[in-house]
């Protein structure tokens, strides 16, 4: 398809303070594809996610990121969202005083650049919540305030469904979810595959199996060391270590 969005990350270097974290990371992904990113704790997966979304503490020292040729790095986080980028946070923040529904409606209006009537919004939100097996009263609760770990993750998915991004990064959305919810998230990802390209960060092979990815990337020390298919995840399970990655890369 000609209008498929493409995210191109080229030789990206990112530091926090003066500590280099990403050391030349390159990755290209298209809307409609599913990529899995695996890697050691502290290897820089969340750093990549934050840097792509434009977190101010993450300094891009060199390299480029484009979405459909547009320079993402020059944009504010909200402008990136408007272009169709989405990040499901590993640790979503709680925001007392701001209800889920009020927040989501404003977010949807900002991303789409148009008013959405309360009626239309409520209708689509109910449908999305149903898809995620969320009780209606969640809409009235304050965003993530007092939510369990799993509820927060589900709420991230609700935001994803509401904003319908072209490229979505799921940063360990599976962690903290029970078996049934993991399957539900995988189902949502699979159901969305035509309109969204996914970069799924996970530590678990069974999640990789559920996601049926087109590519699996293995990251150590701030770089993607290997790219392949599900067999890489299976190998990880078998080896129970990262040593082979360094040896074979």
């Amino acid at each position, binding site marked *: 398809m000609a209008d498929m969005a493409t995210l191109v990350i080229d030789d990206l270097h990112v530091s926090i303070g003066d500590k280099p974290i990403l050391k030349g990371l390159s990755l290209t992904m298209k809307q409609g594809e599913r990529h899995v990113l695996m890697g050691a704790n502290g290897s820089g997966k969340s750093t990549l996610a934050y840097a792509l*979304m*434009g977190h101010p503490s993450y300094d891009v020292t060199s390299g480029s990121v484009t979405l459909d040729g547009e320079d993402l790095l020059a944009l504010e986080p909200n402008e990136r969202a408007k272009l169709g980028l989405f990040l499901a*946070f590993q640790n979503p*923040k709680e925001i007392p*005083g*701001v209800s889920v529904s009020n*927040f989501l409606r404003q*977010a949807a209006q900002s*991303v789409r650049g148009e008013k959405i009537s309360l009626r239309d919004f409520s209708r689509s939100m109910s449908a999305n919540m149903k898809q995620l097996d969320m009780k209606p009263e969640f809409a009235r609760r304050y965003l993530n305030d007092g939510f369990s770990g799993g509820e927060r993750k589900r709420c991230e998915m609700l935001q994803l469904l509401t904003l319908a991004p072209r490229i979505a990064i799921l940063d360990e959305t599976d962690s903290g979810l029970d078996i049934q919810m993991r399957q539900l998230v995988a189902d949502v990802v699979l159901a969305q595959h035509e309109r969204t390209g996914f970069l799924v960060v996970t530590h678990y092979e069974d999640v990789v199996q559920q996601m049926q990815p087109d590519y699996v990337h293995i990251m150590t020390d701030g770089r993607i060391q290997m790219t392949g298919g599900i067999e890489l995840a299976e190998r990880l399970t078998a080896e129970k270590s990262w040593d082979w990655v360094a040896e074979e890369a």
Partner: protein
Amino acid sequence: MSSLHGFTRDSVVALSAALAEPDWLLAKRLEAFTAFEQTPYPDTRSDEDWRRCDLRRIDFDALADIATPNGATASAVTAADDAVGTATFVDGTLVGSRLNAELAAQGVVLTSLHQALPSHGELIRTHFMTHCVQPGEGKFTLLHAAFFNQGLFCYVPRGVQVDGALLAQVELGGGSLLHHSLIIVDDGARLSLVEEYRSAADVTGLSVPITEIIAGRDAQVVYAGVQEWGPKVYEVGVKRVLAGPGAQVSLCTGNLGGKLSKEFIGAALAGSGSSVDLLGISFPAAGQHLDQTTVQDHRVANCHSNLRFLGAVGDKGRSVFRGVISVHPEAQQTDAYQKNENLLLGDKARADSMPVLEILADDVKCSHGASLSHLDNEIVFYLMSRGLPRGEAQRMMVAGFFEPVIEQVPVESVRARLQHAVAQRIDNLAASHGGLL
């Protein structure tokens, strides 16, 4: 009514005559005036209640034109479709009122003090500045007792339930306004009432209001006072509820406007089993000094009070909170809580918070807490990552900061009014400084 200049004895006499007051009321004014003259203004260096409040900024003589009606009708009056009754005061005179006919038939009264004098004179005489707020408490209560204008009188007879809210609007066109509100909710009755105070942006004035709420046995009262004076108005006011046995009261205050405002907000828990929630929001912007002293006065055993005051302070704004919990020796089994939280929007925003516990009984549960915070940049980023521009994200967070208190207000229309007032403040702040921060 001719204009009255100066806080003088002549003004007292002229004002009382113009309002055709009975002798007892004139005598009460004159007694207060005599004491007023003998009482110095509070010493802001030594008096704890006034220590951070610079009264020298107020030119009392220049402002001592006692506000009188100038023929104008209320400009600030909003259509209050949701209110079951309204009363509108402009420069100290009732210019219009309406009340649901059913409520009127049940004996509910919503009018001015002076219009109610012929029919409810004894009730007024019993409760007007006698046992809730007393003239002799200080310089400004004396000033008020000597020069009060035609204030609000609201009465709900025994057992009558007012569904929906009553609304009183108070507008100041200049000079001094000493608005009095006497709200009496008799035994077993229920009332929700909102008072809104407004003035145009260019009006210079002095406001010395007193609101007295008398809640009878098992009465249920929700009161909200929303102060949105323009930026050139000075204010020293008192809002107090006297809670009878088993009364349940929510006393909510929005302190938003004014150049310098000092409010004493209090609950006197005078009847066993009474319970009062004190909910407050304040939002000083650049150049504003909003100062609040709260008093949870537990006079008898078995009462409960819970205070939560939230303040957002704009850059170069100043907020002072002094929260007194006073538990009398006989007030055993008291539950009293106090929490003051401030959100600083800018490096030059300043908020002081001082709890004062005077606990003279031994079997009590009391706690207090205060916090200071800034907008969390991680949350700003989170909201921006969902498409909200930075300004919108900050706006949402400031509005959200007030929500935990606003949502505790038990009446929907009252909540909506408070939310609207906060939203307007945020808009003003965002517009005047090109951003909240």
